[in-house]
């Protein structure tokens, strides 16, 4: 069964690229030294740390000293937001209602400590309303945190426009770019962000390693205190295989970006078109243009997302329900809610996230199966029957 699988859940995590894994391997049992040690084993480890820091800096157009390695996107978001919060007297944070839980829950935990939160409104295409930002900023505002690529509906937020406002107001701008970095061109200078979160496992690097970009001169306290690694800002023995993998993933992403983005975007648009043509009443959520190259997010009214997912899984396709959230009991995605999506559409939502290893034939096979599964589940749905009878059950 497994050998015929098609993996369409690249926004949840990606396969480690073979070249990345090969680059990591020597650092497990060969060059296994502690990168802080002064002996030969330590120096070998240290060198790969700095090599990777350079690769990442190049990928996002930062300086190497502006890169701090972390254990992943979640830590980077917590580090950025809590690190700023604890180093400042300002007590107001602006974010958006469509952020990943690693930003939302972090902001909420600060709210319990006395911070005030404001949420930038979202339009029904899943894009923040830039024009609302300026009037929300007060002298007490520390930070605006808005993601770059949304992990559910795939929308790309107008960071550049946001940063013009935050800069003119002297407020810091953080962006959770976990879905974007490695999957589309990202330039911290062009975007104007002051802090930016990155995670390797979203672009064919390993899990458990990420980074935070912190613009030079930005003050933030460590989240992990200890042996003073990373200029004293993030302690912990260097995860050298992980860092080596992150570096290699960056190198490959940079090399292949010009080929990757158009190829995947073309597959995505083809999939969107086929779904809209072949599946009645299917609906695509999120802006069709400002969208991550691999993201397709659709709603199939009258059926429920988990059932869809499991049927597709049986047919060999790994996809995700609308929300990648691990809280299984959270039924309706906070992102779709913020976009004012119809409840029936929100229940039957599906995220298909394409990646480096997907091919045209995967798309074609998938649409066939999806059409069958949708028909089948609708056939047994009382809501579908009701709608066909013109009834109103909702």
């Amino acid at each position, binding site marked *: 069964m497994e050998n015929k699988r098609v993996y369409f859940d690249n926004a949840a995590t990606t396969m480690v690229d073979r070249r990345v894994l090969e680059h990591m391997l020597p650092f497990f049992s060969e060059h296994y030294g502690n990168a802080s040690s002064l002996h030969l084993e330590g120096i070998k480890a240290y060198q790969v740390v700095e090599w990777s820091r350079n690769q990442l800096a190049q990928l996002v157009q930062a300086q190497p000293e502006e890169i701090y390695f972390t254990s992943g996107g979640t830590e980077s978001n917590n580090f950025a937001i809590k690190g700023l919060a604890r180093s400042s007297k300002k007590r107001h944070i602006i974010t958006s209602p469509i952020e990943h839980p690693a930003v939302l829950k972090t902001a909420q935990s600060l709210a319990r400590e006395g911070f005030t939160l404001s949420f930038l409104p979202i339009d029904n295409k899943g894009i923040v309303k830039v024009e609302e930002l300026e009037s929300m900023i007060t002298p007490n505002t520390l930070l605006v945190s808005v993601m770059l690529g949304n992990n559910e509906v795939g929308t790309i937020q107008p960071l550049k426009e946001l940063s013009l406002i935050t800069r003119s107001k002297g407020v810091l701008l953080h962006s959770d770019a976990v879905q974007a970095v490695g999957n589309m061109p990202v330039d911290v200078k062009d975007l104007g962000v002051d802090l930016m979160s990155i995670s390797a496992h979203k672009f064919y690097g390993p899990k458990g390693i990420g980074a935070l970009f912190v613009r030079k001169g930005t003050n933030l306290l460590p989240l992990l205190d200890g042996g003073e690694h990373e200029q004293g800002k993030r302690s912990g023995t260097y995860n050298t295989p992980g860092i080596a993998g992150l570096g290699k993933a960056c190198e490959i992403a940079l090399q292949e970006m010009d080929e990757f983005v158009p190829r995947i975007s073309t597959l995505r648009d083809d999939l969107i078109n086929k779904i809209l043509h072949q599946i009645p009443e299917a609906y695509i959520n999120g802006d069709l243009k400002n969208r991550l190259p691999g993201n397709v997010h659709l709603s199939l009214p*009258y*059926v*429920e*997302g*988990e*059932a869809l997912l*499991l*049927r597709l899984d*049986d047919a060999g396709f790994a996809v995700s329900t609308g929300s990648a959230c691990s809280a*299984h*009991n959270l*039924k*309706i995605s906070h992102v779709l809610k913020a976009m004012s999506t119809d*409840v*029936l559409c929100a*229940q039957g939502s599906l995220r298909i996230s394409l990646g480096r290893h997907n091919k045209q034939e995967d798309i074609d096979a998938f649409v066939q199966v999806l059409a069958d599964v949708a028909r089948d589940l609708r*056939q*047994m*749905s*009382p*809501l*579908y*029957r009701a709608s066909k009878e013109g009834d109103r*059950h*909702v």
Partner: protein
Amino acid sequence: MYNEIILDHFRKPRNVGVIEDADGVGEVGNAVCGDMMTFYLKVKDDCIVDARYQTFGCGAAIAVSSMVSEMIKGKKIQEVMEMTHKDVSNMLGGLPPQKEHCSNLGIDAVKKAIEDYRAKKACNNTSAVQK
């Protein structure tokens, strides 16, 4: 997350469908809470001779409706009224904690359908007497 019994019922749900001339129909849940179930019953001599359903919901909800349809077919109404959601969950080999509420839905829909059947019967009897 789901065990093999549940997955089997989810993959091949038994007795799916609608009985147009059902003796009792029961519907629970709605789209907002993410689960909805409609049970259709045919009753003869206080016995459930046919049971069909439609379900909108997650894997557990579908498996529960399938299992409940099998559990009640051929059973006396009285027996069915005594079934609990724990019986359903047990027959399915246990539901994940966050899915336990789905087992309520199945048994609730069936009991609603039985009430509907009883109400209709009472009504028909009254009509008969009046006739």
